[in-house]
């Protein structure tokens, strides 16, 4: 491979990896804080993508400008889903809770695509603002405006999340709940409310990622599970509960996929490669690359 191709592959990998990171961070948050494995995480992403599509085609709102609106809408959708479906399960013991919430989120995974098919038909949709195909060169590498914007959005959102979790009282209460929910209650933290907001925050992050996916690739009713799986791979790669780790693991997966797609023999099996990494990490380093031992 020439230098140009290698560099181009890296840039592409980082761009898509930032999206993986953004998706995984949301999943990591709900799993870390609540021990809810939200299989329908990718469905929230799908809804976010379609909302951006609607805003763009019906109201002519630029998808990047629509991001805050979509974040808020998905936050509310997540809050409603949590309140109606998950909050009743929160008081169970951990094992029962993990099983039951898994079933409920599988239910959501079945319902959301049906509703989407009804609202938007089964066609693949792409969000294509005028600048979507354009790119600029740096050092002989083409860098698209849209992927670059996606990378920036992902970095800003994850930095903001990091600051929220480490600098504010509310963020600290989220981390405290993750570490020891009983003790968090004894500090006077309303743990039920923390759960609600965390779940909604996870949905909002997925929605934002959905906009980026809609801009760089496309949205379709059945797209959710594919992204949930990616997020799971990244989560296992990073280790549970590490926000920065999830982001970097996303970048790693993005680059590995982009590079392998250009290699002979391995190229066609890029998607499977992610799952191989998933298995290898589970076998060799179950706490993840950035997770704490034990």
């Amino acid at each position, binding site marked *: 491979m020439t230098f140009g191709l290698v560099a181009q592959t890296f840039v592409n990998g980082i761009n898509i990896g930032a999206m993986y990171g953004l998706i995984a961070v949301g999943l990591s948050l709900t799993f870390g804080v609540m021990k809810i494995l939200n299989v329908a995480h990718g469905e929230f992403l799908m809804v976010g993508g379609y909302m951006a599509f609607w805003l763009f085609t019906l109201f002519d709102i630029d998808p990047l400008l629509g991001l805050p609106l979509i974040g808020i809408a998905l936050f509310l959708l997540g809050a409603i889903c949590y309140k109606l479906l998950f909050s009743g399960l929160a008081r169970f013991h951990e094992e029962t809770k993990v099983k039951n919430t898994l079933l409920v989120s599988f239910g959501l995974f079945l319902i959301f695509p049906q509703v989407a098919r009804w609202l938007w038909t089964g066609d693949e949709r792409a969000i294509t603002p005028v600048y979507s195909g354009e790119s600029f060169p740096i050092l002989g590498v083409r860098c698209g405006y849209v992927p670059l914007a996606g990378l920036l959005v992902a970095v800003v959102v994850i930095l903001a999340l990091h600051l929220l979790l480490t600098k504010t*009282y509310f963020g600290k209460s989220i*981390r405290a709940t993750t*570490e*020891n929910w*009983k003790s968090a*209650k*004894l500090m*006077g933290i309303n*743990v*039920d409310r923390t759960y609600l907001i965390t779940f909604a925050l996870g949905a909002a992050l997925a929605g934002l990622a959905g906009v980026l996916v809609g801009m760089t690739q496309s949205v379709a009713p059945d797209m959710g599970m594919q992204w949930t799986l990616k997020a799971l791979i990244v989560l296992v790669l990073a280790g549970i509960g590490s926000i920065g780790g999830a982001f970097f693991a996303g970048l790693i997966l993005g680059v590995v996929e982009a590079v392998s797609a250009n290699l002979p023999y391995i190229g066609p099996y890029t998607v499977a490669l992610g799952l191989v990494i998933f298995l290898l990490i589970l076998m060799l380093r179950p706490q993840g690359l950035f997770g704490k031992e034990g």
Partner: protein
Amino acid sequence: MLEVNNIDVYHGDLQALWDVSLKVEEGELVSLIGANGAGKTTAVETISGLHTPASGTVIFNGVRLDKEPTHKVVELGVCLIPEEKGIFPGMSVLENLELGAFTSESRKARGETFEAVYRLFPVLEERKKQVAGTLSGGEQQMLAIGRALMAKPKLLMCDEPSLGLAPLIVKSIFEVIKQINKSGVGILLVEQNVRAALGLAQRAYIIENGRVSGHGDAKSLLDDEKVRDAYLGTG
């Protein structure tokens, strides 16, 4: 100040407490003693709102606690230091203390309370940047007490503060609890170390198999033949 009236508490189908009643008056240091598994922890956790009694009432300064969630109980001024200490191991000492002052009222006053807690435990100030999980057992207990004080409690419940600590550290922990009580905070002390608990407390309740089997003046319980037989091993 605190009145527990005839509570029955279940863990699922298993009844853990039968008809338990106890009282802590303003500024009093009361001890709850009994063997392992007698129901002492269940009793204080019920007061904190972690369990809901099937019958009976818990009243604190005229307010019913037994239907309130734990975070409301803390807001009203009742704090529990749980048996396993419950520190947040991955967060710094400072963050642990900050979380102690989570309720809005204690948060406003946290500048002063920080000073008071650091005065009581200078080691916490030295180690405020350190991750709490790396503290020694005794330091973790100090952190747990300091964190509870950050909430400015009116009633502090300590569940087995001596558990797993070296005798010398136990002595200093008990000394601190006595000081806290002298500053006007009511204390409900759960202990298996019956001799030490009775030495510290003004009054005590004995719990046996989920029932209160006796209560009275700590001094007279120390001299009581049955108590000496069962708990002090001096027969």
